């Protein structure tokens, strides 16, 4: 595959998560129910996006190493 599909999903979730988090905490404020909702769900999306990005980058590096014949982390253990 041309790239790991987790990377664009990760990017989208991080971007939308930051928008919700910034709008909820910064513009609406944590004292309001709508601010709390935006902040909490923005945080959840941000964390999910970062985790997905971590696994995506790791897999991408491993496949590149295999393609170039270099040893991967699991080979070195």
């Amino acid at each position, binding site marked *: *595959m041309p790239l790991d599909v987790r990377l664009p999903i990760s990017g*989208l979730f991080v971007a*939308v998560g930051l*928008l*919700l988090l910034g709008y909820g905490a910064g513009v609406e404020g944590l004292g309001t129910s709508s601010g709390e909702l935006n902040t909490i*769900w923005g945080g959840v999306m941000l964390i999910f996006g970062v985790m997905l990005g971590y696994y995506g980058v790791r897999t991408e590096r491993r496949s590149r190493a295999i393609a170039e014949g270099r040893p991967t982390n699991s080979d070195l253990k």
Partner: protein
Amino acid sequence: MKTTGLAFVDYAIIAVYFLFVLGVGWLVRRSVHTSKDFFEAGRRTPAWVAGLAFVSANLGAQEVIGMGASGAKYGIATAHFYWVGAIPAMVFVALFMMPFYYGSRARSVPEYLRLRFDEKTRAFNAGSFAVMTVFSSGVSMYAMGKLFNLLLGWDMDASMLAAAAVVLAYTTLGGLTSAIYNEVLQFCLIVAGLLPLVFLGLRDVGGWNGLTAKLAHAATAQGYPAGAYTQAWRHLGDPSQNPVGVEWLGLVMGLGFVLSFGYWCTDFLVVQRAMAADSTTAARRTPLIAAVPKMLFPALVILPGMIAFALSASGGALIPPKLTAALQPLLDAHGRQVLDYDLATPSMLLHYFPNGMLGLGLTALLASFMSGMAGNVTAFNTVWTYDIYQSYIRRGASDAHYLWVGRVATVGGVLLSIGAAYVARSFNNIMDVLQLVFAFVNAPLFATFALGMFWRRTTGHGAFVGLVSGTVAAAIHHGLTLPAGAVPGVKGGYFGVIHVFPSELAQTFWTAIAAFTTCALVTTLVTLVTRPRPDAELRGLVYSLTPRAGSTDSQLTWYHRPAVLAAFVLGATLVLNVIFW
């Protein structure tokens, strides 16, 4: 209905989403060099990616909006479309049909029909499928434009054309790979956009117990047993005792067998995703992986509709009434307002989501529309190029030429879809017509496939005459019956009325059963009087002449084995049916 203006953050979320789907198309285009890359994603897609794309291509706007509407109208019985009407067929296509589709090296479902039967059977299927995909895509586009116009006052033409332009851009650039990547992304976004809605709605009605109590009140007020909206099977003994108006036999045979197997096993829109997998084993695992989220979708798409109905029934007026041409509320025979169930899920979004989350929810609806449309467009360009252009217009051209034709067909498919959307605009009930066309086309097609794959004597003449007869039988059955309360016309009864069904669903299920049975009988009879093809020509195309695909499964880790996955999926579905019995 509550109306909400969008804030800058909502537009920003929609803009970010557009940017990412276009970016995916731009990145993927570098890997598209041949027609195989464009139409088949190079057959190098991992099973989990193909699996999520498989389920996402089916998760169009009609699914998200339509299942919410059915949830509001019929309650938990709508889950039968998943637990009876999808999961068993997905397991069947994975275990028994993918080895033929993938192993025969056919590039499309119509091409498999040519290999197995003959040219005329392929031409019949390719033509009807191409028309169906364009109409389906157009109706979906129209539904989305109308929805955004009603909800936000957006210009219908502008919202339809903008979304179509984005889909056109990324499918033309990256073909099936781009569509699959974006389908996975859209799947994640749809879940992220709808999950908080379910949580907020359930919290508001007092959890599942509170919802059950509210819906029990609504059910008894309409003359149904208290559990009619929250118990999936208990009231299916008598059609008058459940809001769907069907009995268990019609449901299991019509939906669970004919319509479901007809769609999941033969519709190239979904089968194409599995055929893009990187091996036969991955292709077999694709529908099974897709079945895991599919069995849980009722919680995501049906529950919001049920909650909206419960709140409306207890005086919340969440679902607006349907309006007449004179913009007055539509009343039923008892003088009660008829609710516009299609607005159940969108009304929930406006009711519960503040700005920010609202942008995410609307983006989820946009994503569902775009994934459905891209699925139709990529299936259309493949069938057009391989099964119509390459077969009947220009044979033997270079691969680069067919790649170019595929891109032109993508543009053509989107333009035809836009045309179909404007046709849909001039008909009140084009959705009903479309559902019916699916019952006419897919139900007999499953009989053709089942006989063709598992009875090697089945002949091309038998398959073709059976398919045509099945479609004619569907038209006759539909033309002689009506759903209760309807007048003869597009809903049936155009040849005279000899039977009235309690609901449109019941009529559709039995129309499908009539089409399937006729096709199976006629195919069998014609086969018996025509000459079968020699066995040597059928190797890899029929069950009895193909090495078992599962023979190498023992080398796989146990949880990667299709049979283990299938057992898990069926077991979990059974548990869900028992819980909501």
